[in-house]
């Protein structure tokens, strides 16, 4: 009974995690401006102000688009002097981050275990 409930929870959580990732990526790519930004920063790193010159919208609006791409893990940002340079993130790097996140969950659970143990005595 407990075991079968465990499996159900696992399946649910796996689905939720992957759905949430997929939602962020599809949402990020569902916009023509954002797709265009990705195409530009895949060739070379560009500052937000350099990007903003290509679109009939404010700097702040372009910054928001970049933020959506960043949350989906599709670009990374690097500070160079006073500017934030935006670059497309290669798939291998995205995968590495996912894996590190999974490993982080294991360590969080170990830390909780230590905390419980220390609280016992």
């Amino acid at each position, binding site marked *: 009974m407990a*075991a079968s409930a*465990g499996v159900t*929870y*696992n399946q*649910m*959580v*796996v689905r939720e*995690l992957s759905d949430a990732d997929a939602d962020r990526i599809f949402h990020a790519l569902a916009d023509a401006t954002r797709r265009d930004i990705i195409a530009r920063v895949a060739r070379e790193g560009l500052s937000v102000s350099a990007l903003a010159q290509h679109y009939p919208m404010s700097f702040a609006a372009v910054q928001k688009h970049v933020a959506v791409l960043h949350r989906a893990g599709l670009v990374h940002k690097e500070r160079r002097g006073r500017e934030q340079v935006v670059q497309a993130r290669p798939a*291998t*790097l*995205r*995968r*590495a*981050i996912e*894996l*590190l*996140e*999974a*490993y*982080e*969950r*294991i*360590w*969080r*659970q*170990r*830390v*909780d*275990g*230590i*905390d*419980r*143990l*220390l*609280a016992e*005595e």
Partner: protein
Amino acid sequence: MPVVKSYKDAEALTLTVVAEFAAPVERVWQVWEDPRLLERWWGPPGWPATFERHEFVVGGRCAYYMTGPGGERSRGWWRITAIEPPRRLEFDDGFADESGEPQLEGTVIHGVVTLEPQETGTRMTIVCRFDDAAAMEQMLAMGMEEGITQSAGQIDDLLG
């Protein structure tokens, strides 16, 4: 909230986790040094660890297995590369075959644990470095499942 921050460096394949405990450095060191305490938190929920060998000296080996819900065993080993009680521990962590021998081709994680006294207790910093992404994939074939099981436990707690 024991974990105070974490940092992931995808290019260096490194994970850093910083945690704070309301206990002195010596007691936090004990949960690593004493195999009977270590095995109470090393394995993920549902996979308790048993340390059959635990040589807490430089060059020392540790050997353990974790027992799954169906009685299946997953074996691992450590090799201590540096130790300064009660402040610092460096070790390599990998999988072992059924006899407990390290799988030479397998994943190795290089871990550095640092304990620092704080006014309210102890700050523990763990830095884990993977050799390459393939090694991480291999380790997480099981680890991913463990992490997810833990999230499931949290959901359980919320619902309960």
